[in-house]
């Protein structure tokens, strides 16, 4: 039972970045822009978040306050960085995949460059303890207490809150409806007076905000508050894309897909602690491959009846029918 609790406790901080970034990808793709650049946006958010934490960690701010303010910094950073993608993809009608790739390549290089020049290392190391041993009062509830309120991060609750907010925006507001229309049939949307360019900027910007926050939460929940230019976010941006496809571009399904992938990854990295798996004597590397292999298996089964937004990847041109 303790192993089970441990797995859930360490799974949630991993699932949240995946969830947020995949939600970001959903906003972007449902507006009609493929966002391969999520990996870069995550690292950008994580880097600025960590830079902020590094600068304030000596002051008498509490760790959770630092986390919340750092989240805003990361969100702004992600937003600004995503403008690069929306400018190229929406205004300049460039190839979205190529632009996304360049966005992914730029950030690790910049992070390494500046970390090497100013910190003399490959990244930023911070020493604030964001970890919550137990939430007072709530951790005593049987079963739920150890599952959700012990040895966790505040990021888990913020992430779930953002999931609810995103779902409401997506399904219950006029903005959400218009956004979805632009990804399915932009010409029709335009004909009833929706500004397709604006909605696509909005979709990509939302993915930037969520991607930036997701990156910061990754650095907190997975990397102990550090950022490294060499490993970056270890393909989490790409995994999030797979989560999004597995979740068929729908918020709630994305949530479950994120939990699934996070569970696999947690399992992969805690093999030594689970006697049953450890006794099998399989090389650890196979477990590390597990999330990526699972992605492929899942995609192989879901892609033939994929419900991708119809107009994604096609730059909108007013003069075309």
């Amino acid at each position: 039972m303790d192993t089970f609790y441990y797995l859930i406790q360490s799974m949630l901080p991993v699932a949240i970045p995946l969830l947020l970034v995949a939600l970001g990808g959903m906003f972007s793709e449902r507006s009609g822009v493929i966002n391969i650049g999520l990996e870069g946006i995550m690292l950008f958010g994580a880097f600025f978040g960590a830079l902020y934490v590094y600068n304030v960690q000596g002051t008498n701010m509490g760790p959770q306050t630092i986390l919340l303010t750092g989240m805003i910094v990361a969100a702004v950073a992600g937003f600004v960085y995503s403008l690069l993608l929306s400018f190229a993809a929406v205004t300049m009608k460039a190839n979205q995949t190529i632009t996304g790739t360049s966005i992914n390549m730029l950030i690790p290089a910049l992070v390494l460059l500046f970390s090497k020049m100013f910190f003399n290392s490959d990244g930023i190391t911070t020493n604030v303890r964001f970890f919550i041993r137990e939430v007072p009062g709530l951790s005593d509830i049987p079963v739920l207490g150890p599952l959700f309120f012990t040895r966790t991060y505040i990021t888990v609750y913020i992430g779930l809150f953002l999931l609810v907010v995103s779902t409401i925006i997506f399904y219950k507001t006029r903005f959400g409806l218009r956004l979805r229309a632009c990804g399915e049939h932009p010409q029709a949307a335009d004909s009833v007076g929706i500004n397709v360019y604006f909605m696509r900027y909005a979709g990509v910007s939302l993915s930037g905000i969520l991607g930036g926050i997701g990156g910061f939460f990754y650095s907190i929940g997975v990397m102990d508050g550090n950022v490294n230019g060499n490993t970056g976010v270890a393909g989490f941006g790409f995994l999030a894309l797979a989560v999004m496809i597995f979740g068929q571009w729908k918020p709630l399904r994305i949530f479950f897909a994120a939990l699934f992938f996070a569970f696999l990854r947690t399992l992969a990295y805690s093999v030594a602690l689970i006697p049953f798996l450890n006794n099998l004597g399989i090389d650890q590397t196979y477990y590390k491959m597990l999330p990526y292999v699972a992605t492929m298996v899942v995609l192989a089964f879901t892609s033939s009846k994929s419900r991708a937004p119809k107009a994604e990847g096609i730059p909108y041109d007013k003069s075309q029918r």
Partner: protein
Amino acid sequence: MQDKKSSKSFIASYKNITKSKGFSAFTAALLAIALGLIFGFIVMLVAQPGSAIRGFERVLMGGFRRVGDVFYFATPIMMTGLAVGFAFKMGLFNIGASGQYTMGMFFALYVGFMWDVPASIHWIVAILAGFVGGMIWGAIPGVFKALLNVNEVITSIMFNYIGMFFVDMWIQGNSTMYASTTTRTHYLPKQVQIPSLGIQGSNVNLGIIFAILVGIALYIVLQKTTFGYELKATGFNKTAADYAGMKGKRNIILTMVIAGGLAGLGGAFAILAPSAITGSSMTYEPINIIAANGFNGIAVALLGNAHPIGIIFSSVFISHIQRGGTLASLVGFKPEIIDVVIAVIIYFSAFAMIMNAGLARFVKNLREKRHSKVAESKSIADEDAAKNTKEAK
């Protein structure tokens, strides 16, 4: 008379050149390069204003001092560039060149260390093994795309990671290949190394010649064979190509197999190269990082407009500024500055053609305005003349 005619035809051909697709791709590439370099210079200014100009000068000119090295480092990215560009002609974005490169490298290493082959042809067999390794790893995204409709971008990214984990595991588990004391692979025996071209102070070897020959061969395949024609047709319009009876699925898999093989050759050329220390060779360090040469191949392919001959030149250029970046570290910068420049070049080359067309339209509009003004004054003069003749009558 003769002179006039030739000058006229010269003007005509000049106009043809400027209007041709290749030329606009060339100017677009130049524009992207210029913007990338400017951005790099700005980053250098921000990072270290004092030595920015000296550093930038090294980035631009440094490669000329090490021509041999430029060609040596151009070899692998020329191959990955060809791998990306070849698939691009078909409308496939082969972002998995890294994984194919790593796999090719591993196959070459394996044959180099473990197989007992006559010494005289050992290095050739190792190169071919690299080709096969890359082909296997390239076939997977092709099959997923053709048979299961999975986007090749996601597949090849996932298989970059899977391939990297596999190769690192296999190498670390093999004591013939892996020296745990240096955490790198051992030096390859002399007979497996690609013969050096013998330029003093550089590792440049026969690999570059092979890479250029492969580029030319690809050009011929694309221009002169049915397969090349079908490939390009599918790239232009998939539905029309299907309608014309071209076997789309078979072509997708075949294209990815060839592209993978090219990247695999890149890996083989890189690892089988002799290094500057006599008797030693290149080594590989398994530290769970995806090969950067695969991603640089994307930049090379885009700069070369996915044209095999263009890629040969663009890979030399990218290698040139990379050497410059290494030299810039002597004045306090880090070589990563070049990765920044390359990323910016890719960013702009994604829409440089459009920017270029916009620029051309702007210039044309200006010219037309001037022309129409001239024409207007001319027509007024004509009218006056007509009036005059009338009055005279």
